[in-house]
């Protein structure tokens, strides 16, 4: 008797839970894709016939009889202008309640990449691999989801193309403006290589792209939007620029703050960058040690980085007295990667662009903080500079 009633209870339990069905999402042979919207322009009366640059990404879109989009295999909505910093893991999810997404996948609740060769790809979405039709459609800046918008607002297409997304490869897709004067738009699909390269974890890697539109730096300064945190970079840089870097330690000594460049890493030549809005070629990675300071404890460091941009044939010394904010007509710009990118270092008087430190300081193992080297990409787009950081998987904290 007792046994039977228990059986009935079990059946009852099954009945009560009968409607809860869990479908696990799975993607066979995915490629990994991350999308940035690099448009920097605002709408004004002069260009109001253009669309505001906020998009919906559609992979393998479906259409109704009239040619209006009714769905897609992968749909990335609310793709807003990108943020200055694209962190190594999608922290947007926990930090924001707005629907506007600074990158794809960003806040989207989709399958993301695994740890590949030690690199955390949780900022890359899994997308179906192979030759895929990819569309980017303009949408209004409202909180209405794309498929619920009126039909006429779903038909302004930025790009409609077929991309070959190879299985297991890591791609970064950039939407950008190719020409500042004709307002020609386009995109770059970059097949990332960092996970295939023998990169050391005791070095920090950075590669730099200039994806500014043609004619931006030479345009009248009045036509460029100014952002306080971008300093001299607001005015753009010339098409070919040499890059120098400094590693700077800072501390409080003799009653005041000081910034001290590390010997051997003081205004050192790094390489040359060319403006390019056409090719998806990966630029070479420059590197410097994580613990460059001779007196370092090799566990954590506060060292920060400066990057100097100036045209070939010029000496850096000729420009350093222009460190104040002014229009150098594309000849000089500085980027400071200091702390969280929201404060200016002591040595900066407003001329440099502000970005977060390339070194990641985080509680790991028994050390709090512990410093990790990263793989970084600096992208200069018109008057703005963006930082993307990729981090290796690290040991969890021990409390």
């Amino acid at each position, binding site marked *: 008797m007792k046994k039977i*009633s228990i059986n*009935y209870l079990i059946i*009852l339990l099954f*009945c009560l839970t009968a409607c809860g069905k869990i479908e696990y999402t799975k993607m066979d042979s995915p490629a990994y894709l991350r999308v940035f919207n690099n448009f920097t322009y*605002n709408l*004004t009366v002069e260009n*109001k016939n253009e669309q505001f640059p906020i998009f919906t990404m559609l992979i393998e879109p479906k259409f109704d009889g009239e040619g209006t989009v009714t769905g897609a295999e992968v749909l990335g909505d609310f793709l807003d202008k990108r943020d200055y910093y694209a962190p190594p893991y999608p922290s947007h999810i926990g930090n924001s309640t707005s629907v506007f997404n600074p990158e794809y996948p960003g806040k989207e609740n989709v399958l993301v990449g695994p740890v590949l060769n030690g690199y955390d790809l949780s900022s890359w979405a899994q997308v179906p691999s192979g030759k895929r039709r990819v569309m980017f459609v303009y949408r209004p800046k409202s909180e209405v989801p794309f498929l619920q918008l009126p039909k006429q607002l779903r038909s302004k297409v930025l790009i409609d193309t077929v991309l070959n997304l190879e299985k297991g490869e890591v791609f970064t897709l950039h939407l950008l403006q190719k020409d500042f004067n004709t307002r020609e738009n386009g995109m770059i699909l970059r097949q990332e290589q960092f996970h295939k390269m023998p990169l050391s974890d005791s070095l920090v890697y950075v590669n730099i792209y200039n994806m500014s539109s043609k004619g931006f730096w030479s345009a009248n300064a*009045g036509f460029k*939007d100014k952002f306080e945190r971008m300093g001299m970079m607001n005015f753009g840089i010339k098409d070919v620029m040499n890059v120098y870097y400094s590693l700077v330690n800072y501390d409080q000594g003799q009653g005041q703050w000081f910034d001290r460049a590390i010997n051997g890493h003081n205004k050192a030549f790094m390489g040359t960058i060319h403006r390019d809005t056409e090719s998806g070629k990966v630029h070479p990675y420059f590197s410097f040690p994580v613990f460059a300071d001779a007196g370092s404890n090799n566990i954590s460091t506060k060292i920060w980085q400066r990057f100097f941009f100036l045209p070939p044939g010029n000496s850096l010394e000729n420009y350093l007295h222009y460190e104040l904010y002014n229009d150098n007509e594309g000849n000089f710009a500085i980027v400071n990667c200091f702390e969280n990118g929201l404060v200016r270092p002591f040595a900066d008087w407003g001329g440099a662009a502000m970005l977060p430190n390339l070194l990641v300081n985080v509680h790991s193992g028994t050390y709090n903080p512990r410093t990790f080297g990263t793989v970084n990409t600096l992208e200069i787009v018109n008057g703005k500079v963006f930082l993307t950081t990729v981090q290796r998987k690290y040991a969890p904290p021990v409390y």
Partner: protein
Amino acid sequence: MMKQYSLKFMVFLLLVLNLACKHERVVLFAPNLNLRPAGEFINNNYEFKLFNAALKITGLSEVLNGPGPFTVFAPSDLAFNNMGIRTPADFQKMNLDSLRDVMKYHIVVQRMSSMDVAKKTVDNPFNTLLGHPVLLSLGNDIDYDFYINGSKIIRKDIDLANGTLNTVDKVIKYQPVTVKKYLESQERYRIFTAALKKFGLLDQLDTQGPWTVLALPNSAFEKLSISKDDIEKLNPASFKTRLFGTYIFKLQFFRSDLLILTKSGGSGGYDPSGAAVRVPIPGDEEYSHGMAGYNLFVIKTEYGNDPIVRETTTGPADRIDLLFKNGIIHEAGELVIYPEEAFIRP
């Protein structure tokens, strides 16, 4: 005993199974069935006496009492008064067909609310009974910066049985002629039209554009004692294009657009990053023209903010935001470039 027990369980189980997948539909807000249709609402509202009269004369009142849905942009009596219409009898003197077209242009053929327009956007088209869309614009604040064809929407989203109703402060018009045709038909712009013709600028206003023309009334020329004959005597070859090119923009903007699509920062009202519009004058790129606030100005292209050559106001209210097939006309106050300033010295 045993059997009884299991039967009870079976009944209980059936009950549970019956309930398990059922989701009751909960209605939180029942629709209000006591709302009146648009035509009735306007008929019963003293603020729309003249609008109601116009709808009745043109037979649109019955249409508005139909199933809809409609969104009505109703001009208040004050808006009609500003046009010189004071009593319902004044409508009798008007051409019924053109009055009907004007009224049809105030009725959008869908139920829309202010929520359908995104913030900081202009030119959101909504189709009307006339067949030509009205353009809605919204700034930052829906209570203060909400416009239809450049006219302010004063009250918004009044619910009706067959749609919604909004109040506007001006009668909006769409005239299916080109900017050129309109300028030629107006005695008020006789000297200005003659000047554009003389300098070869008038014919382009027949093309698609879109154009915005800051039209100068005859009084602006008379103030400088320039007559039509003086214009006819000028030799276009010895003047820079800016003399009259200043007043023509190859853009389309209502005056309200200048307040909504502002630029970020800038070092002053005339600076390219401060003025809502500032573009080089086509054919005479040495000088730029633009709009600072509501004012038209001319400045040398190489200068940032000053010195400007001259600026002038736009208005009055019933002579701005006039929409045509290929553009918009606003009336400007005065000349901003005098003939001697555009003269090419030999």
